[in-house]
């Protein structure tokens, strides 16, 4: 086993052969380094090209663009690009490649627990996704693979035929570490002796920790605190994801989360990330100032949910995500069902350029009776 991460220098050459020079530049330049104005120019021509390619290759996408009266070209800003509501991937199979080029169909359970997103991947897009994720993680992990603690049970990746979103997340992160240690047993109990032995073995090395935000809080930090154990994780970097909903109920936000970790374990390098199955690889990573940053090949726009116009900086709205990765399906410009707010842009000299995003959670579910199996005439009788 080599200690070099996948997707490092050797691979970026391959990416260049697959795709345009503009796209290649987004990969070869250090992530989170491109000043905002320059980045928008680079992205705009790429997205315009993608919009027109998907329009040719994907009939459902074309029908939508035609009905919207979307122009073929001449877009002057990223905000002007037409977006698709992400729910469309739950109701339709949207593919821009011939059937024989479909490499993998990714699915994920939806919020309702019924609807499932279908994302069609060809080899090119799948490759781009893994290169992209590697490039993003390199920003905080470097190019070495470090001993890795997975704050989850080994069971989560055992049944690969039917693994959960959690399992998929863990699997996606495994290549960035080595000597994998699963910190929880099947009962979600912390294996404290195992953890201590692991840390003793790697006392002088940088450590990678990965887990879902809630699991880190509930089954790792809580367990450490109640056991009165304070392992030294000061040489560790924690990558975590999965949303704050469960923690918000306990009034635990990012700041509380980080300071509690720091206090208990000395763990100071903590990076949340934000991503979705419809744009795998295109993850937003938390910088040193607690904000999420889009990588070179991605962008975010906040939209006012009343007018769908772009919201001014500092104003919360619905999160639109853009990614140059989706080649095999028209998922390059998506309106999510998340709320967020952008707080200006970062300073390129700090190593974190680009929009500073804060995710505020899911759009609350409607008070309407919804489009469900409720007999509609239940509301009859008014005059």
């Amino acid at each position: 086993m080599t200690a070099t991460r996948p997707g490092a220098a050797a691979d970026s050459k391959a990416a260049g052969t697959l795709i345009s020079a503009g796209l290649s530049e987004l990969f070869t330049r250090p992530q989170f380094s491109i000043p905002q104005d320059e980045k928008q120019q680079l992205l705009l021509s790429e997205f315009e090209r993608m919009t027109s390619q998907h329009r040719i290759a994907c009939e459902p996408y074309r029908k939508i663009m035609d009905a919207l009266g979307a122009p073929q070209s001449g877009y002057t800003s990223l905000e002007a690009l037409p977006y698709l509501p992400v729910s469309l991937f739950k109701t339709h199979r949207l593919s821009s490649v011939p059937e024989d080029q479909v490499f993998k169909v990714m699915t994920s359970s939806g919020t309702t627990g019924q609807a499932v997103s279908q994302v069609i991947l060809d080899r090119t897009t799948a490759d781009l996704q893994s290169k992209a994720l590697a490039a993003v993680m390199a920003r905080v992990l470097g190019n070495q693979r470090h001993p890795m603690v997975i704050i989850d049970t080994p069971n989560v990746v055992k049944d690969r035929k039917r693994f959960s979103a959690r399992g998929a997340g863990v699997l996606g992160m495994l290549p960035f570490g080595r000597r994998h240690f699963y910190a929880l047993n099947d009962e979600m109990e912390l294996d404290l002796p195992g953890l201590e032995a692991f840390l003793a073995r790697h006392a002088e090395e940088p450590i990678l920790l990965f887990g879902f935000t809630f699991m880190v809080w509930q089954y790792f930090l809580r367990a450490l605190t109640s056991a009165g154990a304070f392992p030294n994780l000061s040489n560790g970097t924690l990558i975590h994801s999965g949303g704050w909903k469960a923690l918000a109920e306990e009034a635990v936000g990012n700041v509380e989360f980080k300071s509690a970790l720091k206090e208990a374990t000395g763990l100071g390098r903590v990076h949340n990330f934000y991503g979705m199955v419809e744009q795998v690889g295109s993850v937003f990573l938390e910088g040193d100032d607690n904000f999420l940053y889009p990588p070179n090949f991605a962008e975010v726009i906040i939209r006012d949910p009343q007018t769908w116009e772009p919201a001014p900086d500092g104003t919360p709205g619905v999160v639109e995500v853009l990614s140059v990765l989706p080649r095999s399906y028209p998922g390059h410009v998506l309106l999510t069902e998340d709320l967020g707010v952008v707080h200006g842009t970062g300073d390129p000299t700090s190593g974190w350029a680009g929009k500073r995003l804060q995710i505020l959670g899911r759009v609350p579910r409607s008070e309407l009776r919804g489009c469900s199996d409720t007999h509609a005439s239940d509301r009859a009788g008014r005059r």
Partner: protein
Amino acid sequence: MTTLGQEESQLCDIPRTKRPLHVQEVLPAQRSVDLSEILDRLNQAPVVTPFDQSRTEFIADLSRRLARAGRGLAETQALAYWMRKAEIHRMNVAFSKLESEGFVLMPRGTVFHIPPSNVDTLFVYSWVLSTLVGNRNIVRLSSRATEQSNLIIETICEALVNHRTVADSSVMVTYGHDDSVTAAISAVSDTRVIWGGDVTVNRIRSIPIPPHATEVVFADRFSMAAIGIEAYQSLDTRERGRLADLFFNDAYWFDQLGCSSPRLLLWVGKRDPGPSANDFFSRVRGVAHAKAYSVDTSTAIAKLGQSYSTMIDAEVSGYSAQDNTLTVLDMSSFPDVRGEFCGAGLFYQLHVSQLNEIVSHVRRADQTLTTFGIPEQEITKLVSDLRGRGIDRIVPFGQALRFSRFWDGYDLLTELTRKVTISVRGALG
């Protein structure tokens, strides 16, 4: 008071399930109770002849109480008004005319009502009609109670205190998704009323009712409106405003999720509908704004999703959504857009030169057609050309949501009673 023998309950075999089935009784008392106790008590209660004084007096009393308790609540006011004393009297007169020399109408017995999963006033309409015609009633309420439905239930409970005989034959319960409870109630029912969705209807239909029992089901429906282009063009500004008001009420009062609320608007006539359509919808948008109709973010996103889905699945030639209150999709052919719907002001519009161009597209699921400016003979011709393949109600603008005993092609007063024929002249007579 006329009571029909209490021994009648013996005609129903009450199945004794092995394990006790617990349900939450909401009315007349509030308690957790074994279902068999409720069913035993209910089936010992007498049924009475239709429009028995005990029932009409109770309903009139309830109407007064609801009007008082539900001040400021439009749904409850509408309900109270619909069941006011004068209206019950009118219904009674109409009902008597159904009987003839050859037969009389008698209650079915025990009626099991399954209203939609979201509780609101509908369960009351169903239950009131059945109570009026003398039945015993058991209503399965959703556990997801709303403030308004709680208020209504409280008011009914209060009213029942002074009407013991009605109380004895009225039960409302909640229970989880437990088919064995539904089965046990169904087994002692003479009529089962299911207010759908299709999924609910199919699920409950798989649970048997006694061989003699009848069933009334209300499935998912789709409704539309039609405006005559020439008639619209001849309206003055005030009249156009009035029409937009009525349309707003038909469509938006229940967030466009009433099955009789229009989703598809047909512009009927030879002329270009474009200017009229723009004028009409800008007025509707104006009404929505004036009434401060607002759409939450989740619904706004659902409207986008529904619109974009339709662009894939049907022939959409234009899209207009200036803000979240009103979205209009121009269709270049009659769309099959029945089924799941987001509501909250999403309309499909289609131009036809004559109303009966839609005949071949109408489906059984199509319920209400709300019309303005369409000559009566064109409507009559449509109904005759349809030969019952769809559309149960044709009403003027403003009446889409007006509930009546005639619903989805049923006369509920007839469905909730049975005809007893009387012929006394025999061969020797």
